[in-house]
């Protein structure tokens, strides 16, 4: 009885809209049979995006995008609202998953040569979607609107400011004026909540439309290069012979993977929770150490490690060049071998990019270039003296800021060389020379230190020797 009613309703809807057949045909389009678990990352990205849409819409029920009220509403969401903390975690780890899945999807498509004829525009729209995802990540971090967010806006504006000719305009556009203020947050809110999602929806639509138009690419076979003249016919033949309907023969893997990802994200949100809110967004609180979220931490490392003076060009042309190269890839080479076993340089490129980002990321986590402002005065056991020049020198080592950048034992910063056993490798004259003249990353203390202080400091450093039993 119920089934009859349901069938009549669906028949009626189908008659008036035609939508059930249309979607059904799309879902059952033929896919190559051996497209297996390698092919889940694209749909996983979409799945992560849907988590972002749902959790984002929910967060918007409480979030007030106002410079003065965003922070209190975030406190409310984190501390008071039922499920609020969990929801923030969901949105954060969902974003992380989306970035990760975009990366995996891209690497898989690249390694399988799926970007070649006739799928050039699938790749190009994918690169744009990667860009949109990163913009979402950056603007999303800003909507957290704590101290870190405010300084990230300033850092973003400074980078925009390096663009030739229109840099100053772009910087003002980023800040929404001359300084961080009432007009700043709403800009990022509009970008994060309206403009970027609309672009992502539109381009995901186009991206999927292209999948339907050209079909899911068959896993590559070594020795079977892509020839634009014959590819379409061969692909059609392959599907006619061995193709399986995407729904459900291939879709079940996407569904399983997506659900697994949701479980993983929910578990992370539950057990680790959202990033802790920082201090209030008051730009006059000077004690701030802005850091981007993990997915941009490697880029933070790039900016720190570039040779001084070159970052001006890099900040503008670096990302631009990467974007252009990525989009240009299928137009430079859209034919030939697809199999990674015949494209060793493709494997090398992926391995190198992954290693590069991983290495930069590890550096970014430790950020040895950042002075350590939490360095404590050296312990007496480390100093090895309770009075006299060595003791005074140790106090100066802290007060003159040396310890912010140099390690003595476990205490200090990592910006400059570790001085735990400096006396084993430098004579007194060299120490004085280096303290007085400084270097590229060290200030010259010549005009900044008295002779007596210099003597005490060097006396302390001369006691820094490796103690061998």
């Amino acid at each position, binding site marked *: 009885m119920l089934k009859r009613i349901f069938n009549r309703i669906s028949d009626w809807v189908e008659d008036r809209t035609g939508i059930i057949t249309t979607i059904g045909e799309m879902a059952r389009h033929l896919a190559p049979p051996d497209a297996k678990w390698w092919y889940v990352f694209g749909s996983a990205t979409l799945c992560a995006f849907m988590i972002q849409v749902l959790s984002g819409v929910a967060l918007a029920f409480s979030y007030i995008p*106002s*410079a*003065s*009220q965003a*922070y209190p509403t975030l406190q409310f969401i984190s501390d008071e609202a039922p499920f609020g903390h969990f929801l923030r975690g969901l949105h954060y780890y969902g974003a992380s998953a989306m970035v990760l899945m975009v990366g995996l999807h891209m690497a898989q498509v690249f390694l399988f040569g799926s970007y070649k004829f006739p799928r050039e525009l699938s790749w190009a729209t994918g690169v744009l979607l990667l860009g949109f995802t990163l913009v979402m990540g950056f603007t999303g971090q800003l909507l957290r609107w704590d101290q870190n967010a*405010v*300084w990230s806006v*300033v*850092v973003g*504006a*400074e980078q925009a400011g*390096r663009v030739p000719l229109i*840099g*100053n*305009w772009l*910087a*003002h*556009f980023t*800040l*929404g*004026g*001359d*300084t*961080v*203020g*009432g*007009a*700043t*947050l709403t800009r990022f809110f509009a970008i994060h909540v309206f403009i970027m999602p609309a672009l992502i929806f539109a381009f995901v639509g186009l991206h999927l439309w292209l999948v339907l138009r050209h079909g899911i690419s068959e896993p590559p076979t070594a020795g079977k290069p892509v020839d634009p003249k014959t590819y379409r016919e061969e692909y059609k033949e392959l599907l006619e012979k061995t193709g399986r309907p995407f729904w459900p023969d291939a879709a079940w893997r996407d569904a399983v993977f997506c659900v697994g990802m949701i479980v993983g994200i929910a578990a992370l949100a539950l057990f680790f929770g959202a990033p802790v809110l920082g201090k209030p*967004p*008051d*730009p*006059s*609180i*000077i*004690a*701030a*150490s*802005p850091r981007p979220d993990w997915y941009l931490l490697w880029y933070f490392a790039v*900016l*720190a490690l*570039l040779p*001084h003076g070159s*970052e*001006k060009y890099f900040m503008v042309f670096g990302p631009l060049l990467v974007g252009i190269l990525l989009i240009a890839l299928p137009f430079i080479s859209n034919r030939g071998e697809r199999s990674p076993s015949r494209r060793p340089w493709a494997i090398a490129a992926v391995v190198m990019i992954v290693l590069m980002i991983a290495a930069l990321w590890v550096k970014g986590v430790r950020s040895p*270039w*950042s*002075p350590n*402002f939490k360095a404590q005065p050296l312990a007496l056991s480390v100093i090895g003296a309770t009075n006299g020049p060595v003791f005074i020198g140790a106090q100066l080592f802290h007060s*003159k*800021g040396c310890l*912010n950048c140099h390690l003595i034992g476990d205490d200090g910063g990592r*910006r400059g060389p570790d001085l735990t056993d400096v006396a084993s490798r430098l004579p007194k004259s060299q120490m004085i020379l280096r303290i007085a003249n*400084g270097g*590229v*990353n*060290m*200030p*010259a203390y010549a005009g*900044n230190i008295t002779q007596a202080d210099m003597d005490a400091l060097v006396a302390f450093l001369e006691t820094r020797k490796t103690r061998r039993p």
Partner: protein
Amino acid sequence: MNENTNSHTHSCQRPAPTPEEITRRRFLERVILVAGGIGALILTVPIVGFILAPFFARPPKIWRSVGKVESFKIGATAAVQYEDASALSWAGVTARSAAWLRRVDADTFVAFSINCTHLGCPVRWLAQANLFMCPCHGGVYYQDGAVAAGPPPLPLPRYPVRVKNGDVQIETSSIPITK
């Protein structure tokens, strides 16, 4: 159903359009394009103008008192806070700004931006070391704002500062953007 089939067959069997019909259609296409263009222009100018408003706005500059002259020690550098020139009423704490104020001698003050010229992070003053140090990438400046070490391409920018009626005043300025 019949009706549909009929109209479909009918349109398939239409005779080739006459030259008059072609001219008329071209004309109608142009009408659509021109009308659409006018509509888009009417919408675009105010919308884009509204979004780009910060390009054109030049907020007024105001002298803000940051403290009595005698509250600053000669030779010392201190953080001072003040309110931006034209803070929006919903700006809250984001309307606040800070600067490093150095009293060079009895009547000379220098106000430094707290923004590192490398990427804008807030530099800290290490009083005993006589150095400004940036927490982001380790830029260091001397007490006069000159670059001492690290990636900053320029000295710390200075803000206009004056003494009026015993008050030290700083003129509100934009965040310095390194070009």
